[in-house]
């Protein structure tokens, strides 16, 4: 069964001022003597009614199997709870996606369970035969114009199709057309860079962080160039979501250590933003080690600088700064060895590594050195952490 995303009005908050009904270009909003309601069949999710609403009651959305009827909505005093445990038909595992994920997770040495407090992910709701169509709501270059790499922040809007994702999950993109042998192009996976409630909360959208792979990088990337060149309002076919292990813990006392390079920042951004929105004052610590060649090439450099120090402890490492020795994330980890060692001793600490293939080696070495100095055994600790879903690596 396909899931639908339904626009509703919260009757406990609405003051029946008629502004939404007046504003709606499609006459999808109507009312009786008690409630204002949205007609699922007429609403196209254009969002015209959202900002004029003085109460926020209009900004209510649910993922449902069968849309609520107008009569259902007229009878409400409060918004009912969103239906849980929907039997969304999760398709058979997508072999191509599985293979890609296995490759990405290879560095952690086999399957790792998700954290005990992770939310339940939806997986494989949309297949290659039945993809979701998303509209490009925004596509911006986020690296400096002089920077050597061209990284884009791309926002996909799913309209009325439910496409629930969790931080750490990825989605599949298949570039249109066929290769020179007439076969469809291969799927590429991209980590979601926005938290579960969307890049813009309440809007059915998600963000990707895509690096344009150019000829001079080895081979021109088909999918990355396709995505980076999409204009606003163009559509793209999306498969997924995928991933049931690299998920964030949801308990407030969880310490989250994030180590990433380049576009490996995407899941880290999602995790950080989720914590910022949901529990900015959580007792658990957030620590981020983030590497790039130069500040210009570090995606989300600006917004990252604005996060308060008592919310996230950030260490940036640059490998190509003029007049400065090369520095990698592992060097920064060693500098902060004492703090990391303290965190490693807590059962509430979860580690996430994401970035270019090979970076995990440097991280492993750093952890080994840090542990040795504090009288810990990294190999044993890593095994425990993996078994408990507290050590996750994804490299590509």
């Amino acid at each position: 069964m396909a899931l639908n995303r339904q626009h509703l009005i919260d009757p406990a908050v609405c003051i029946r001022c008629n502004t939404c009904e007046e504003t709606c270009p499609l006459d999808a909003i109507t009312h009786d003597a008690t409630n204002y309601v949205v007609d699922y069949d007429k609403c196209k999710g254009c969002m015209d009614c959202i900002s004029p609403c003085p109460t926020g009651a209009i900004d209510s959305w649910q993922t449902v199997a069968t849309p609520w009827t107008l009569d259902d909505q007229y009878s409400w005093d409060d918004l009912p709870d969103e239906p849980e445990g929907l039997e969304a038909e999760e398709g058979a595992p997508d072999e191509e996606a599985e293979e890609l994920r296995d490759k990405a997770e290879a560095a952690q040495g086999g399957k790792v369970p998700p954290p005990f407090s992770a939310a339940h992910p939806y997986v494989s709701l949309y297949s290659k035969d039945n993809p979701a169509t998303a509209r490009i709501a925004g596509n911006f270059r986020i690296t400096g114009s002089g920077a050597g790499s061209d990284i884009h922040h791309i926002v996909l809007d799913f309209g009325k199709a439910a496409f629930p994702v969790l931080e750490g999950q990825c989605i599949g993109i298949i570039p249109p057309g066929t290769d020179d042998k007439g076969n469809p192009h291969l799927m590429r996976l991209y980590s979601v860079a926005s938290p579960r409630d969307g890049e813009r909360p309440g809007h059915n959208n998600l963000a990707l962080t895509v690096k344009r792979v150019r000829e001079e990088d080895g081979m021109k990337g088909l999918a990355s160039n396709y995505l980076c060149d999409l204009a606003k309002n163009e559509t793209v076919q999306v498969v997924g979501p995928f991933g049931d292990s690299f998920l964030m813990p949801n308990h407030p006392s969880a310490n989250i250590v994030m180590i990433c390079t380049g576009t490996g920042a995407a899941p880290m951004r999602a995790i950080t933003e989720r914590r910022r929105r949901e529990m900015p004052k959580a007792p658990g610590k957030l620590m981020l080690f983030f590497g790039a060649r130069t500040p210009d090439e570090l995606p989300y450099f600006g917004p990252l600088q604005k996060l308060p120090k008592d919310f996230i402890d950030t260490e940036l490492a640059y490998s190509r700064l003029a007049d400065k020795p090369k520095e990698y994330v592992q060097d920064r980890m060693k500098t902060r060895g004492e703090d990391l060692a303290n965190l490693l001793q807590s059962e509430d600490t979860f580690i996430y590594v994401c970035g270019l293939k090979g970076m995990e080696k440097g991280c492993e070495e750093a952890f080994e050195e840090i542990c040795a100095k504090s009288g810990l055994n990294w190999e044993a600790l890593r095994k425990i952490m993996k078994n408990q879903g507290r050590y996750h690596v994804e490299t590509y």
Partner: protein
Amino acid sequence: MTIDYNEKIPNNVNLSEDRRLQRALEKWQPGYLEWWDQLGPEDTTNYDVYLRTATSVDPKGWAHFDYVKMPDYRWGIFLTPTDEDRKIAFGDHKGEKAWQDVPGEYRAELRRLIVTQGDTEPASVEQQRHLGMTCPSLYDLRNLFQVNVEEGRHLWAMVYLLHAHFGRDGREEADAMLERHSGDPDKPRILQAFNEDTPDWLSFFMFTFFTDRDGKYQLASLAESGFDPLARSCRFMLTEEAHHMFVGESGVGRVIKRACDIMTEHKTDNVRKYGGIDLPTIQKYLNFHFSVSVDLFGQELSTNAANFYTMGLKGRYQEEKINDNHQLKDDPYEVSELKGDSIVNVEAPALTAINERLRDDYIADCQAGVNRWNKIIQKAGIDFELKIPHRAFHRGIGTFSSVKVSPDGRVLTEAEWDHHHGQWLPTPEDRAYVSSLMQAVTEPGKFANWIAAPDRGINNQSVDFEYVRFN
């Protein structure tokens, strides 16, 4: 329809193409800012307030949120877009093209309507100027300031019409808007409800629910006007007015919620013992604010109102959605009337009963809101119902101003009234109690003990967001 913010006076009416008008309004502007400084929210010049500002009049652009210092708020002139084919929907001119200029024969009447409406806008800012000192939370403080800046903008909307369409007397009327002051014994505001004090936050919430709702109904009937610039001004004002209704409904609702919480938690009716406002006191405030607000609709039968309608200047609420002849020449309408010692319903000519019809629409809207308040009480499992008093209760204008009537509609003797009115209207002791609760709470996310926190923040921000920075 983008608003040009490079202009001294932001507008979407091509003000820069009319040099004379632009100069006249720029001359009025310093007086306005001085008025805001002296009679607007007290000692707030340096606050950064998380305000909503319109950046265009289409749905996507008119609610832009950011920190603003109130004196820097972009007050301006915004009209909903012109509909070239708009026809007058009622009265003698029904079916004619809407007027873009003032028809000479109706000039005096139109000016009077605009001045009366315009005068209420700065009046309420004046009435509320001290409230910031005792805000129950930053969230509420921000809402108060949002209401204030928008009332200021509504004054701009009316002043623009006076300057643009009424020549010298229009300019004089615009100046007089800044010369009359709420409660001033020598130069009071035109309507009495706008000379009353707004002494505490319960009064403020009641005022925005009941008295601003009168504003909504007046604006809605002016939005039907055959004089198109007035209709378009009022239409955009209505979008802003909805926020004021929200502040009132949710504000009173949260006071009720808090009372119910205290009653449930302590298993008591003695809400005051625990620092809340008890439901009977809320009922008295409701009675007061409802009764002074229904006065604002004027006489039950009014030749002036009939004339305004026939002339096509001021319609009924949602005129175009009403299914009748829109001229009302021979139609009847039922109104309440005093007959001896009782109140009876009689048939009157619909045309002269136009005020009463608007009052009926208003009362129905109030009743729906009060029903939603009662839901809060019901949900808490408490046996109490808030009631709207009879329309004849405590009236200062119209047929019923000559008699004393109980909230349930019985005509009383003076002696009966003297004996009972303390049960129906806030007594000095009630006011003193409510006033004693008014202590400023300014820590983000904290709320005064007498009011519950809201369910949602503004613009999807959390409830503990720092809505006002004092600097």
